[in-house]
């Protein structure tokens, strides 16, 4: 850990609420880069499919949804061709669900590092969610060809809507991952519950169906789901609909709260990690 000879590092039992240690995080930023780089490289090497899985996952889901929900069930799609409707919704969702699922496992998966080397442990869930961003970027590229195939002209709103939605997804997933990665170390059985909850969450989010399909008096309930405004913004801005700042503000607020409280909880539990893992 970088320190000038005069700077004294004190190691002692920590009491009370731990600080977030942002200065330390900055000092270790290169390690964050390497941890992310490692996960991506490994995936890339393991199979030819490796890196393209980032695209195949949402693409395949889109195909299935388009067939069953678009063609067979004939769900409305807010003026967009169903394919695009589904894919645009799946993009941020895939980032979110993968980030949460992988992020929650990230600490117990890094047991070998945590017990042998010191670094701010919070880098582990952060790196996990960041790798998801790379996958997201790749899958985003596929949007181009899809729009071409459907002869769809995206609106300029998308230039703002997509980055904002992506950023909010990332932050929300980060906050959740920080919480969950620590909780999973403390409560091992939580690990099995998470994929299930994420699945349910998907149905609670207007991905397969548009928000407009939800009866007006229940719409507020769906809107409580932080991912709902994100998905709607992502899709809506493509179609040229105005971006609802109020709805996004809710997601932003929730994300910030999750990150801050998650950070505190994580730091409190961090002192026990090496002993618990």
């Amino acid at each position, binding site marked *: 850990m970088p320190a000038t000879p005069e700077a*004294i590092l004190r*190691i002692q*039992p920590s009491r009370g609420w731990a600080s977030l240690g942002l200065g330390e995080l900055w000092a270790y930023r290169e*390690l964050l880069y390497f941890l992310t780089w490692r996960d991506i490289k490994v995936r890339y090497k393991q199979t030819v499919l490796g890196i393209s899985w980032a695209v195949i996952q949402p693409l395949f889901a889109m195909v299935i949804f388009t067939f069953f929900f678009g063609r067979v069930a004939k769900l409305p799609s807010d003026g967009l061709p169903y394919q695009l409707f589904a894919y645009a919704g799946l993009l941020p969702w895939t980032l979110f669900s993968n980030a949460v699922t992988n992020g929650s496992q990230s600490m117990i998966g890094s047991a*070998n590092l945590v017990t042998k080397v010191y670094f701010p442990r919070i880098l582990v869930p952060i790196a996990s969610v960041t790798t998801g961003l790379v996958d997201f970027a790749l899958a985003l590229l596929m949007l181009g060809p899809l729009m071409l195939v459907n002869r769809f002209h995206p609106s300029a709103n998308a230039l703002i809507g997509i980055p904002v939605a992506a950023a909010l997804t990332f932050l929300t997933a980060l906050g959740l991952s920080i919480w969950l990665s620590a909780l999973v170390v403390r409560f091992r059985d*939580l690990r099995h*519950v998470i994929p299930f909850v994420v699945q349910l969450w998907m149905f609670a989010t207007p991905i397969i169906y548009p928000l407009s399909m939800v009866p007006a008096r229940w719409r507020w309930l769906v809107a409580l789901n932080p991912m709902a405004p994100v998905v709607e913004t992502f899709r809506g801005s493509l179609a040229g609909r105005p971006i609802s700042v109020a709805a996004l503000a809710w997601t932003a607020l929730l994300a910030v709260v999750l990150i801050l409280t998650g950070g505190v909880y994580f730091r409190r539990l961090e002192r026990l990690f090496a002993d618990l893992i």
Partner: protein
Amino acid sequence: MSDIAVRVENVSKLYRIGARIDPRTLRETLTDVLMLRRRVRDDAERDLWALRDVSFEVNRGEAIGIIGQNGAGKSTLLKVLSRITEPTGGRVEVRGRVSSLLEVGTGFHPELTGRENIQLNGAILGMTRAEIRQRFDEIVAFAEVERFIDTPVKYYSSGMYMRLAFAVAAHLEPEILIVDEVLAVGDAAFQAKSLRKMSDVAAHGRTVLFVSHNMPAVKSLCQTAIVLNGGQVIERGPSAAVVSRYLQRSTSRAGREDVARLIESLPPDPVFKLHAIRTLQNGQDTTTVVNGEPLHVAIEFEVFTTTLGLHVYFQLLDLEEVIIFESIHNGDVASQPLVEAGRYVATAVIPADLLAPRPYQLRVNAGIANVRACLPDAVRLSLDVQQTGVVNSAYPGYETPARIAPHLQWIVNRT
């Protein structure tokens, strides 16, 4: 600027053994809450003080060895100093950048190439990208894996893997280096190279804390040593003196009691009775033996009637039960002697500079030649031989694969 690089003050570490934190699953927590049940911890039984009021100081540029039996708390101490685990009490002050080497190859991934793993491992150990780039060639040269640097590490032999891992670690340039027993990798030449590299690190004014069971390495690398026992520092001083006192103290008394009890429980024999078996060096009983001094094996026995061909003997075996040699107390003469009734102590001397620094087994038995054995089974003693002799002393820390290590006279002529 203070001269103290590391100051440890009353550091204690408590582990609760058994269930680490109750409860460990969410299900249990929820049911406890619903059933209003409080988990009661059985404090006294489950508490393990791995470190207890440990205090010492290490000066800048000092290399200090930390020795002790398994379970004495050495690794826990290193973990506390490396910030991997928090102390329960006390505190540590560290002045300078610390790098810890608790394991070789931390974070190595089999799918990545040697080059990629160097970068990854370097970053994990605390090197910046610039430092890794700078030292890359040196690291590869040290590890001797130039040809394979771009092959995935899963194809490396275990030797190559270890060498690469150690090479990265060896090129850290922290102000304070903490090392936990990672020198025993590679062949003799590589081990020597590694030890030399560690000495270089220490010689460049860096502070080194070195945990090891390898006493010659500790003596050659460190000026001072501390001994941990049961989580406490029991001794501190110049490494050579501390190490020899430690080795002498390591007489496992339990082992000796087992042998004495075994001898007492031997079935009676009409002609022969075994009283005791002792192993002595410098006139002292010991089971931790050094190869720099002669080893006396003394067998005390009694003969009840004068018998032709009665003999006691011992065999020296290695851990794989290969008999390295045996010696009969009165066998090296022209004809079988007649042994008169009486009490005897027969002592054999195994010369210095013969035994290798490894564990051996001594098996003692007695018999009447061409008639029968006097004991139903040999009495076994363990001998753990430590290196203090002259053989291979140019390579301290070298672990010879040989069963014995005799000192031979070499005559060198330049041609």
